[in-house]
């Protein structure tokens, strides 16, 4: 590490159990964040500040004024700018020491494997079941650790996967049918509560990359902002899981067309 890096990352380096080794691992790590929205904003800011050496940030949307209530990486003057580029700009300003790769495109069954393969840890910060299942499936197939999270209204949930641990399909085998899912513009979301969950995701990434602590694997954590209840539930990897079980039926990536938050969101 250069003297400047030693100064910049001093509060990590002096942390018991983290040290220069932990920081060096972060500097050599590559993390992909899919989604630069409510979850992705704090996640990207913290991982950039933490000195994750390479961060990919993917989002096909552009910044709109209704995003600014929670997507704190974007500023008012960014309205109309692709979110991936707006996010990259802030991340580089927080920390010019890192490399940021912006993907202003949708992550699809076609491009997911080539992009994901380049990274050590993947973070699902998307706003649709379609993307969550796609990322889950692609990461399990490629043997990549990842963290997946979701939030609706006042309550969120988060789980981490490393090869061999329970996957999202062990918990929720398939996405719910379209007519049972409310859209984002119908239910709303508390901005600061999304931030809490996105920040938890950043911490999970740092832990897996540096090897400190124990990640949120074989478990799901739920957070209810109204009652301030954090609850952790144990999950056994499901031997009959259609993706990670012994006789999987999901063996290649599929597109899920239904994307609730891509509807009725244009102002």
């Amino acid at each position, binding site marked *: 590490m250069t003297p400047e890096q030693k100064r910049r990352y001093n509060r990590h380096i002096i942390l018991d159990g983290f040290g220069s080794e932990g920081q060096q691992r972060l500097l050599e790590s590559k993390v992909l964040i899919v*989604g630069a*929205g*409510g*979850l*992705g904003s704090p996640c990207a800011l913290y991982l950039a500040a933490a000195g994750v050496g390479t961060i990919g940030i993917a989002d096909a949307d552009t910044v709109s004024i209704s995003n600014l209530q929670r997507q704190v990486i974007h500023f008012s003057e960014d309205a109309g700018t692709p979110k991936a580029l707006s996010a990259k700009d802030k991340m580089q300003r927080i920390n010019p020491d890192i490399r940021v790769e912006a993907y202003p495109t949708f992550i699809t069954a076609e491009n997911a494997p080539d992009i994901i393969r380049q990274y050590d840890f993947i973070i*699902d*910060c*998307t*706003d*649709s*079941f379609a993307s*969550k299942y796609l990322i889950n499936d692609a990461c399990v197939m490629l043997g990549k650790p990842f963290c997946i*999270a*979701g*939030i*609706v209204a006042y*309550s*969120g*949930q988060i789980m981490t996967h490393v090869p061999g641990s329970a996957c999202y399909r*062990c*918990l*929720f*085998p*398939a*996405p*719910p*049918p379209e007519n*049972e*899912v409310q859209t*984002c513009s119908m*239910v709303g*979301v508390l901005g600061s509560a*999304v931030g809490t969950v996105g920040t938890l995701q950043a911490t999970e990434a740092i832990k897996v990359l540096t090897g400190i602590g124990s990640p949120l694997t074989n478990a*799901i954590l*739920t957070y209810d902002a109204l*009652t301030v*209840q954090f*609850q*952790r*539930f*144990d*999950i*056994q990897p*499901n031997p*009959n899981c259609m993706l990670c079980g012994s006789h999987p039926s999901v063996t290649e990536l599929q597109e899920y067309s239904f994307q*609730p*938050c891509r509807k009725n969101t244009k102002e």
Partner: protein
Amino acid sequence: MAKRIVINNEARETEAQFIQQLAAELDLPERGVALAVNNKIVPRATWPDTAISEGDSITIIKAAFGG
């Protein structure tokens, strides 16, 4: 005999013997929900054989898509 249980932090009585019966009682959808008994997720395939005991704390977790 009715058992006193807690569902998502609310006290409730049920006649259901097994989780499968409780799920029917609650009209839980086929997809997009997971269920935990005393902080352990119970896979749907084992709902018919998972007995409910007096005092069980049951949590229904809905998959959240937002971000």
